[in-house]
């Protein structure tokens, strides 16, 4: 009797288990397929369609009872012909790359020092890095506008102290743009680097020093290679969103710093050319797909998936 009850329960448990497992997987899976993947397919389809007067034509149409597919590659053709688009893509990649390098230069020593500081002080330091991240990013970017403007805080202070005779132009230049980007994205570089460096086995460094390496040699040949995955994760977290960044260039950039996010925005909101905006987006995805694959691979490794 007792064994019978037990086996019934265990069958019951298994059934619920299998059913529950499928439900747990299915809910987020269906959501992501519908809200993340499907929209990309729609964008791809629309990028190949033609613009009607107010609306884009459907790629598929019914003519004499036959479904006809009309593909228009003209949008992609104009992307390669018009220097506006090419320049915007190139300058986006350039600015994102510079931002990534500057972030790495600031964040690596910072994360290193943080990981080597006394263990009881680390949570507070971590919290200080995270706190600005919790306050509005939009408002913090606006703050730089206030600091860097021709009549901004920095210029006013320097003028008052007599350091400069007339305001230095800082706003709406590549300088202000990269500064704003670095400012916004540097915590995204610090956090993965710190997470990586804090876990490092310090005995390896001791061994290297015992075997006669100088501290610099030990740093370059042990610490840096061991932190490779943190460097990759941080760089991808900075580089990929920077390529398509819109708000920061809009507030801090200038005429010399046209970026692709702005071009897409303009095609969509000002020109109302949805197929063109879709083409711009498809090419942008093409540009970031390789870094994205790197990022996903790193995330999969850190989340314990099978390679």
């Amino acid at each position, binding site marked *: 009797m007792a064994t019978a009850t037990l086996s019934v329960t265990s069958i019951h*448990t298994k059934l*619920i*288990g299998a059913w529950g*497992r499928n439900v*747990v*997987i299915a*809910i*987020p*899976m269906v*959501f*992501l397929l519908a*809200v*993340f*993947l499907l*929209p990309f397919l*729609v*964008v791809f389809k*629309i990028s190949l369609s033609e613009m009607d007067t107010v609306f884009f034509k459907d790629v598929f149409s019914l003519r004499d009872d036959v479904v006809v597919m009309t593909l228009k590659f003209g949008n992609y053709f104009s992307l390669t012909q018009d220097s506006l688009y090419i320049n915007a893509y190139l300058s986006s990649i350039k600015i994102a790359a510079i931002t990534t390098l500057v972030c790495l230069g*600031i964040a690596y*020593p910072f994360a290193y*020092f943080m990981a080597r500081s006394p263990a009881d002080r680390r949570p507070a330091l971590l*919290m200080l890095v995270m706190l600005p991240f*919790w*306050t*509005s990013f*939009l*408002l913090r*970017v*606006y*703050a730089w506008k*206030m*600091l860097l*403007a021709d*009549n*901004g*805080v920095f210029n006013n202070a320097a003028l008052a102290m007599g350091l400069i005779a007339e305001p230095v132009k800082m706003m709406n230049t590549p300088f202000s743009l990269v500064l704003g980007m670095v*400012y916004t994205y*540097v915590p995204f570089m610090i956090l993965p680097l710190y997470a990586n460096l804090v876990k490092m086995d310090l005995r390896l460094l001791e061994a290297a020093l015992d075997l006669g390496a100088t501290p610099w040699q030990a740093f370059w040949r042990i610490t840096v290679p061991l932190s490779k995955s943190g460097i990759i994760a941080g760089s*991808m977290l900075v580089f*990929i*969103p920077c*390529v*398509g*960044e*819109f*708000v920061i260039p809009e*507030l801090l950039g200038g005429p010399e710093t046209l970026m692709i*996010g702005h071009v897409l*925005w303009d095609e969509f909101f000002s020109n109302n050319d949805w197929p063109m*905006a*879709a083409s711009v987006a498809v090419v942008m*995805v093409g540009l970031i797909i390789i870094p*994205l694959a790197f*990022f996903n691979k790193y*995330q*999969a490794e850190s*989340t*314990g*998936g*099978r390679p």
Partner: protein
Amino acid sequence: MISKAGRLTSHGWMAAVFVFLYLPIVALIVFSFNASPMVTNWGGFSLRWYAALMDDREIIDGFKLSLRIAFSTGCSSVVLGTLAALTLHRFKRFPGRTLFAGMVNSPLVMPEVIIGLSLLLMLVSLQRLLGFPERGFSTIWLGHTLLGMAYATVVVLSRLQEMSPSLEEAAQDLGALPLQVFFLVTLPMISQAIASAWLLTFTLSLDDVVISAFLNGPGSTTMPITIFSRARLGLSPSVNTVATLTVVVVSIGVLAASVFMSRAEKKRALEMAAAYRKTD
């Protein structure tokens, strides 16, 4: 082992980065009390811009809408994110796992203009086909949830990974059903992570400009959209006051939450220790 010069470099570097991170925030707050309408020319201390804010219908209505969206986003992101984190943590093999992981993680880095545009084009196609949904609250909520879910998954997943599976196994061995194990054992153990994920997605939603700009409809202008359009035109005292209020509320909230959480953590550690002592 660390030399004096080394310590000086390390402290100096960290201090410089913190100044870099906090200087703009301090400047925002200081100049929100500026009497002069020229934001950066100091004209004496005043609260006039805070008084003006009380009559700023655009900001207040936008704020109410943003709060509603952020609250809903926090809830939906946490539910979906927890399910996604459980999936990634528990089920190492199922068809489409790589695709699943890729789709969960990609919104973390995907430029927002792409997320916004693609969702909008899909929703518009859907609307042509079915007659709904109208753009507004629900469409912005959907977009924010996609982004929020990715962040919530990361937060909950990292907690699941540091958790020891022995408690869940024990509950299972003692005959608890899977749902009982989840609600009585797993959920209490990840509740803090869920709370921080909720707060994080709430603030992300409250802050978002780009996705909202693509997905909003007539009469659904969120606060960040209003602030962004004002900031685009130039410096505006109203933006400084909003910034100061946000910073104050967020700082208090985050500090309170972290104190509360570290207390709960200590209490739990004590309880666990007591439980282990009893079993000895």
